[in-house]
């Protein structure tokens, strides 16, 4: 393979240096390298996963009482749900048939005794029932209106940033300030609740909406008895389309 060629085979001059052409065939080397590259390309993870920070309240009772004091008139409750097919083997959770999101503002329209006074559950005008996760996008408009003061300021800031009036870091810093500012009034308190069947993706996309709409005060809570009654009542009045 490696060849050493001598030039000018016939006439040899005395004292003249021999010209050596060294030619090494690199083809096998390239073959091997390509194989190795393929191996590394298949085995590596170029996409690193991301994480989403969440803080849950502690399970202590004292804090729970404080939470309930959060003004219920300002509260905005989101309920995420998924419709599932029958489980195939009784162990694995069933296939997702559709993802749903519901919301209500203020207090639930049902008393502690379970008597419905006024069912205030609503659902977005379109989008409910899609199989793809992330249906929570549909209530973005509602959330934007609820949090309009913050959203307005964020939009103004973004315009400035797009016009390159402020630097990237300043944009990040100022948007953080706006989101956590307590000077802005009428900021909603969002409570995210998920039914037991709701898919994990739905919960994450609900948390995403908080970030997208600059909502600073939100919490994940368990679906309570009152919510279940409301939801059941709503579903009998507005059956899911098949």
């Amino acid at each position, binding site marked *: 393979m490696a060849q050493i060629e001598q030039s000018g085979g016939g006439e040899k001059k005395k004292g003249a240096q021999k010209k050596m052409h060294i030619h090494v065939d*690199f083809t096998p080397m390239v073959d091997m390298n390509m194989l*190795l590259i393929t191996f590394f390309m298949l085995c590596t993870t170029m996409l690193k996963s991301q*994480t989403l920070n969440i803080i849950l309240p*502690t399970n202590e009772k004292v804090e729970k009482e404080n939470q309930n004091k959060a003004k219920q008139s300002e509260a905005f409750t989101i309920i995420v749900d998924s419709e599932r097919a029958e489980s195939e083997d009784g162990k694995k959770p069933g296939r997702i048939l559709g993802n749903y999101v519901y919301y209500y503002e203020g207090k639930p329209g049902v008393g502690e005794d379970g008597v419905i006074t006024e069912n205030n559950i609503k659902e977005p005008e379109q989008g409910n029932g899609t199989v793809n996760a992330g249906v929570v996008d549909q209530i973005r408009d509602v959330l934007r209106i609820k949090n309009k003061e913050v959203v307005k300021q964020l939009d103004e800031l973004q315009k400035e940033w797009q016009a390159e009036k402020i630097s990237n870091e300043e944009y990040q810093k100022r948007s953080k300030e706006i989101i956590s500012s307590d000077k802005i009034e009428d900021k909603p308190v969002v409570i995210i609740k998920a039914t037991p069947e709701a898919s994990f993706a739905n919960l994450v996309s609900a948390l995403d909406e908080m970030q997208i709409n600059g909502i600073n005060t939100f919490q994940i809570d368990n679906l309570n008895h009152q919510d279940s009654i409301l939801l059941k009542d709503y579903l009998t009045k507005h059956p899911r389309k098949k």
Partner: protein
Amino acid sequence: MGRVKIKRKSTLIDMTAMSDVTVLLLTFFMLTSTFLQKEPVTVKTPSSVSQLAVPASNLVTVLVDPEEHVFISFTGAESMPSDTVRMKVLEQAVATYNKLHKDKPLQLTQAQVQAFSSLSMFGCSFANLPAILSMTPQEQDLAMKPDQPGNMAGIPIDSRKEFQSNPNEFQIWMQAYQTVAQDIKCDVEKPDGTIDKEGTAFDLLRQGKVIAVKADETTPYSVVHVVMDNLQTMKMNRFTLMTSLKENK
């Protein structure tokens, strides 16, 4: 008519340049690659707009599959490599377990402890631990896969609250890590942006940067909730959820 002479051309192509390129590419891939972690179940994490990167050190991944099998993976830091962390966590956890089960204490040989320190992700009950750790790595993989017949997959978990007096096995493991974390030295970023050189992984745990819950996007909330509720009970109420990046519309 003269015959057309076909010139004899050498078919040798100079591969040197090609070789250069491939070697460069190879170097790039070798240096940037992080190998896919071996996991007993493959999950597709939900997509999110959050852009926080997964930390490379001081990470506890809690993997939960749709059938409520729980797996844990501990990653160490520069000051304490992963295998040392795992060994110490095991020591702590077994000590706690033996205190609770005085009639059937768990005895592990040195070789079994070594085997545990090289396991990147594990998920089995304490009772099955000696059996799993005596197996070859291939057998371990199979024994911890939930879809295999006769598997021993999953750390037992339930929603009991008395984690101080009567913890479940998941709580024992997490408690053990919390104890070990106090000895893992690392830099800690304070809320005001300064870096504390004297910090420990315990501070990071308090900031919610250590525990990452990983679940498939179709997993029912009731399953994820069990894990979140357990963490909440242990006052590890700050943690992260593992997601993949969503393209912004």
